[in-house]
């Protein structure tokens, strides 16, 4: 695919920043590929501590792409905005694929002791959350975006504010409302 080249990614990011929406799909595909690769090879935290934070994954994707593509520091913010979206897509794809896997064939042979308690709930809950975010996006797209940037991109309030060109106080308010709403939606999902 032509979009794989690192130079291409820089170029696309520039086009995207300049308002070219078509470039977004292409650059997303490229970032998606990179992120998948990194997610695959991820997880190198202290054995006892949290093993993976999406934050770190996004950051590492940045480092990787930045190095390969020679991305300028200015592209960084745009990148994180994009990466949060892509991160979400990576995880949703994974969760769906795994669920399909569970229903169909393709499960690796496991012993009888291996009951995988709770494993199914994780994925379901995540997919419910994702659906809720989508519904939220229809109602208040900026709130959905804040959630995405915060939890899938790992940006803090100030960074989100800068990216969305609003005040940090606004971001805080949006986040709070969105969280409460999502919490409620996850409790009583509309399937």
């Amino acid at each position, binding site marked *: 695919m032509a979009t794989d080249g690192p130079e291409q990614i820089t170029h696309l990011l520039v086009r995207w920043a300049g308002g070219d929406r078509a470039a977004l799909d292409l650059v997303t595909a490229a970032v998606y590929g990179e992120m998948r690769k990194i997610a695959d090879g*991820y997880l190198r935290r202290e054995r006892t501590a949290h093993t993976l934070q999406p934050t770190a994954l996004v950051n590492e994707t940045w480092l990787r792409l930045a190095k390969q593509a020679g991305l300028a520091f200015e592209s960084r913010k745009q990148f994180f905005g994009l990466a949060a979206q892509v991160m979400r897509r990576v995880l949703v794809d994974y969760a769906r694929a795994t669920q399909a896997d569970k229903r169909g064939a393709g499960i690796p042979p496991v012993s009888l002791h291996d009951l995988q308690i709770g494993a199914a709930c994780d994925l379901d809950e995540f997919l419910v959350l994702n659906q809720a975010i989508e519904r939220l996006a229809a109602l208040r797209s900026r709130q959905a975006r804040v959630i995405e940037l915060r*939890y899938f991109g790992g940006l803090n309030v100030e960074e989100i504010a800068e990216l969305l060109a609003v005040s940090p106080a606004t971001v805080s308010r949006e986040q709070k409302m969105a*969280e409460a709403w999502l919490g409620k939606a996850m409790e009583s999902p509309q399937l």
Partner: protein
Amino acid sequence: MNESWSRLESLFHAASVLEGEEQERFIEGETTGDPALRSELRDLLRHAGSAGKRIAAVVEQVAVRAAGGSNWAGRIFGPYRIVREIGRGGMGIVFEACRDDSEYFKRVALKVAPDWRDLDWLRERFRNERQILARLEHPNIARFLDGGTENGIPYFAMEFVDGQPITVWAREHSLGIRERIAMFRQICSAVSYAHENLVIHRDVKPGNILVDSSGTPKLLDFGIAAFIDAVAAHTANTTGAGLWTPDYASPEQVRGQPLNVRSDVYSLGLVLYELLSDERAQSAENLSPVAMQHAICETDPPPPSARAAVRGDRASSSQLRGDLDLIVATALRKEPERRYSSAADLDADLGRFLFSRPVSARPNTLVYRVSKLVRRNRVASLATALVLLVATAGIGTTLYQARRAERHFQEVRRLANAFIFDVHDRIEFLPGSTEARKAIISTALRYLENLRHDAGRDPELIRELAAGYRKIGDVQGNPLNSSLGDLHAAMVSYGNAESLLTPLAAKGDIDAKLLLAATLEKMGNAQSATGKTEAAKRLDRARALAYEVIAARPTDLTALQLGIDINSDLARFYMDPAAFDKVLNHSQEAVRLAGQMVVAYPARPESQDSLAEAQISLGLASKASGDFTRAEQSYRSALAIRQQLVEQNPNNTGYQRSLLMAYGHIGDLLGLPENRGLDRLPEAVEAFDKAGEIAESMVRLDPANRVALADRATALSRSATCLVEMPNGAERALTNLSQARDILTNLLKADPSNQQLGLRMLAIDGLSGKGLIAVGRLNEATSSLERVRASSKAFQGGSLQALAQGWFAGSTLRLAQIKAIRGDQATAVALTEETIAAVPGSNIPKYSWGYALFCSRLGSAYMQIGRSASAAEWFQKSVDEWRKMKVPAALETKRQKVQAEAEHDLAAARRGHG
């Protein structure tokens, strides 16, 4: 909807700043008459506090699973069964697993590359780690056991370290600062060892340093480690970006810049910091990416003593203040070039601290300036830059400090000898390093000249200088070193060492004698190609000196090893039928000294190895002199030692190959008489098969190991050489040969101009011809033999011509026999003539079993084509050979039997003639 949402939103924000009854009153007041809105508002407020955490947890759980989580317990990988997961790395999941054959029970750490990953680069990395681990053997590095593939999933087993991270262990055992440093130094030595083996760990952190129940710290997880040369060559994609742990990452890691040994030094510094202060030096937790970069790349942590002071721990604070703060700060410099240049340097400084000597981690503006200079003139490859940096810095410190204290002298010595030359050796085979190596040599020579000027009469300095010259001579004279190899320059350097040492040695300085002996040994070997008499004189002098040292210090390992080497040199040197007594004498001396070494150091594998090596040399010498009984004894004792070495060091591939070679020697000794063997063919086959099995297991471990592949092919075809002569052995011989052919075909594909491999292929075709005739598959035999005839032409004019010619002659004769059987008289005659024409240039040995057999076969060939006069002529030659042949006692009966056969054939030919 939108309107009600806005209303809900503003009520939510207004209510969320209120608490308790106040909030309740607000809700009731604002939602009177709208129970739906009221319940929704309450729900929202109820979730407001906890929803954020919950969302984060849900996302994170899926992320964790997406990165490789599925349950593995109970799954089988090779001989191992997974018990539980103990950790995850960028390159795979680590499990506790057990091996519970009927044989024994053993706990291991099993690393598996998860199967839902279909990415080549991951597999590549996984293989990389396996390879790196297999070549690292250090008491403080978790040992590699074995590896393989199960259902397409690669895995390998490592020593299971049941322990705690070093920081936790130190805390729970209330270790004092000095004890912590002593423990930490063991890890420095492990990291330094890895660096010496060209491996950068890149993920040194407490979680990867576990202390076992005996209190031994072990470094684990080389999952993102890399070879230094690979890093230098492909900085773009091997920095392991994104796989390290932010809390223990170096600034260059965070910036995605190329890493070198100093990145590990930084991470070691972080571990040391934590050990000394019980707090992390840097933390990336809860930091946004931008903030993380700032924290790691720009912020210096407070010195450990300050942290202790904050805790109110005055005693620790005063113990840490000064040298230890400084050592930590030096390891943690943000600019790599201002850090310790190696883990060994950090280790050494900590050692100095423990022994209350001045540490080197003082603000050293000179070194700083010099390294800045080097950085400005950065050379293309990292290795080169590293070398030049240290070489130049070495000179800087040298001139600056040489006239000062003893300690500086030691540093200079270490820099010059250990580092410069170590580095030279390490980069020797890196492409494009010739210029850097030249620079090292001329720099080092300049340095030695300067020091020599100031040396005075200090014997220690003189010895150091001489040792320096000797090492330079080694580099200059190394014949493998085609780009630098310069025998004359090497002799000049050795000569400098010799003239420095001779007066000291004459005064009875034992150390000088040892060095002089070592230098003379080098000179003798360097000269052996040109002037034999001079070389022999030097080696004899070296031997006399070495013996004087051994007499004074009977357990000096270096002296003993040197004595063994010199005797082996001399044995090799005299390897000539006229001087077998000398060869035997020197070989026996080597065995005697090696025995002395084993007595002095029974536990050292090196001494066992030397003894085995010496026994092999003695075996070769005994065999050459015709004493097959003693040869067998020597080989057998070498075999026993090497078996033991492999059992005790199962991962040392060097010992494995030595064992393989020992089996090979025994196989040769017991093999066909025409190859100077004892004709105990079944035993020979057994020995070759053992050799083949070892080679096969080495290939399993590392499928790219070309030496092991070639060894396997050799073992298979040697075994076939014997099998083909054994009753009912031809079928098995052919199976072996076809396996060997497959291996060689692949090896030749990668290296088509390799004549050694080509010759082995020739031999396989020749042997196959022989085997196919034995089982009556004459058509296939014909094409095999024709192949030998065609491909032997390629060896004309080369160093292997005579050997190829031997195969040509033998195969041509067999072809003649096939033609004769099939009634093609004319071709049979022509081929037989061709055989005879080929004999003079061939390697078919005169006056020997092989030659006698060959004469008989020619006689038979002539009989088949009805030329009994020529047949009688060749049978006569054969009979003459058998009659005058002296063979080992074990072969005498056989000799008599074949002689009788030849006499019978001769008589028949004469009757046919008469």
